[in-house]
């Protein structure tokens, strides 16, 4: 009887795992199957054409804009915030409050960020529906990710490094940028790369703050659409699954590349000596 029950549970485990793998394979497989026919150089580097058949270059550029702008702001702020929390702050009310805020930010759904961006950046600060409004909203979304990964990276730096450097007469600041930050670099970099993935995958918050203009952005104050928003809109408006799937392939390849880069960098840098 016990044997039977065990075998039943074991079968269930195999079944669950099989189901998960099958479902996920089907999704990725379907997207590649549907979209691969459209993928060529003209599709990727061609300008958008409203009558169909055009490329997605404007959306790729918009996506890159949002990644670069939000990371340029979120990276230094996030790293320095983590440095404060790990290296400077005395554990107490203030630190608890900062940690609580950071954790709460992680749990807020992206549509709420979108609402906030729409009233704060778009309307109150009068930036309009634009790449800059979306990027600033995204900055807040990835800030907790960067703070958390940097904190984790700083935790792995052995205390003896700090003590050694301080004992040699370096100031805290010198110890920080000559000893601690370099040793924590692999962890910090993979955190930054992961936040790129988060930005690429974001849609609702961008939809409400950058608008949907399907054209090459003239600057950071123009409204534009990212790849995810484009993929959503072509599905919703014209039901063009093939086009949506082709954009999906580009997105998946980008995410794959970023993940490989993150693994590669952390391996490569971990081997290096400091």
């Amino acid at each position: 009887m016990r044997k039977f029950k065990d075998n039943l549970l074991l079968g269930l485990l195999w079944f669950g795992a099989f189901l998960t793998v099958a479902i996920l394979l089907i999704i990725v497989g379907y997207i590649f199957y549907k979209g691969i026919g459209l993928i060529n150089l003209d599709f990727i580097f061609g300008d958008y054409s409203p009558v169909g058949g055009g490329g997605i270059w404007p959306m790729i550029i918009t996506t890159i804009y949002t990644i670069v702008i939000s990371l340029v702001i979120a990276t230094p702020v996030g790293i320095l915030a983590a440095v404060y929390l790990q290296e400077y702050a005395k554990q107490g009310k203030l630190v608890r409050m900062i940690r609580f805020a950071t954790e709460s930010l992680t749990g807020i759904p992206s549509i709420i960020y979108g609402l906030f961006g729409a009233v704060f950046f778009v309307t109150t600060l009068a930036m309009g529906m634009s790449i800059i409004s979306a990027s600033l909203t995204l900055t807040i979304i990835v800030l907790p990710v960067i703070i958390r990964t940097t904190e984790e990276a700083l935790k792995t730096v052995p205390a003896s490094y700090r003590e050694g450097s301080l004992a040699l007469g370096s100031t805290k600041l010198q110890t920080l940028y000559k000893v601690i930050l370099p040793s924590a670099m692999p962890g910090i970099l993979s955190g930054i790369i992961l936040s790129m993935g988060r930005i690429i995958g974001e849609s609702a918050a961008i939809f409400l703050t950058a608008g949907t203009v399907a054209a090459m952005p003239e600057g950071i104050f123009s409204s534009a659409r990212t790849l995810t928003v484009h993929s959503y809109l072509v599905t919703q408006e014209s039901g063009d699954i093939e086009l949506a799937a082709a954009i999906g392939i580009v997105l998946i390849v980008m995410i794959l590349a970023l993940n490989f880069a993150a693994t590669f960098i952390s391996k490569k840098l971990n081997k290096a000596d400091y």
Partner: protein
Amino acid sequence: MPNPSEVKQTNKSNRLKYIMEFISEKLFLICALISVLSLFLIIGFVFFKGSNPFIADGYSFIDFIFGSDWIPSEDKYGIFPMIVASIYATIGALVIGVPIGLLTAIFLSEIAPKPIAKIISPAVQLLAGIPSVLYGVFGLAIIVPFLQNNLGLVKGQSLIAVILVLAIMMLPTIVTVAETAIRAVPKTYREGSLALGASPIGTIFKVVVPAAKSGIMAAIVLGLGRAIGETMAVILVAGNSLIIPTSLTDSVRPLTTNIALEMGYAYGTHQEMLFATGIVLFSFILILNFVLAKISSKGGK
């Protein structure tokens, strides 16, 4: 005996160092406070905008929550159907996604031969990073027509389609987080249980899984957060009708989709009511996190 002017110079450069230290520490503090500031701004702005109709314009909050008509052109704002749709969709996704996700996580950490786990685990992790819109595209292309043909529906976009898409989307998150938690259970637990004569499977379900409870709870909360807050994928498969769903095949409009669909053209009170919808969504997430935290801390005892 050092030369007095040299001493003065060292003092001066020391003072400069102290000033630098002082300034940099304050700068780091300011950076750390930015997340607090952002949280306050987000809550402040969303709540300010969303509560305005009830405070300044005399709309009834009760009617807003329990009213079943959402007709902005007639000044009627009731979100009860959307609340019900959101709750049904989330619970449905949990019922399907959590067992499958946990079984997979247990399989990968305890049963699977190493080479298999080494391929599947990172692959699943990768899938957690796929943009959620793509799950919606897949849902519209495959799940919706499947339901339409097999259940004989007029329109395949329905509550059940939303549940399936959300359940699938939750899977990678739940698997990844739960797997890490189960792997973190000390080996001695398993050895102890096996030494006492328990079967390997019995050990997994009676010793290892309970020991990883708090991590598993965290996995469920994260998956839940992803499901209840998901917007764009849901719009594609929900159908977006403003009715209180009575069956799985009804077309629904959850809270998130209402915001995204109407934000583009809403202004005045209509727009403020969308912010109020956001507040309700926000409160939901707070309550759910709180409840689950309570459950898991109780279970831990």
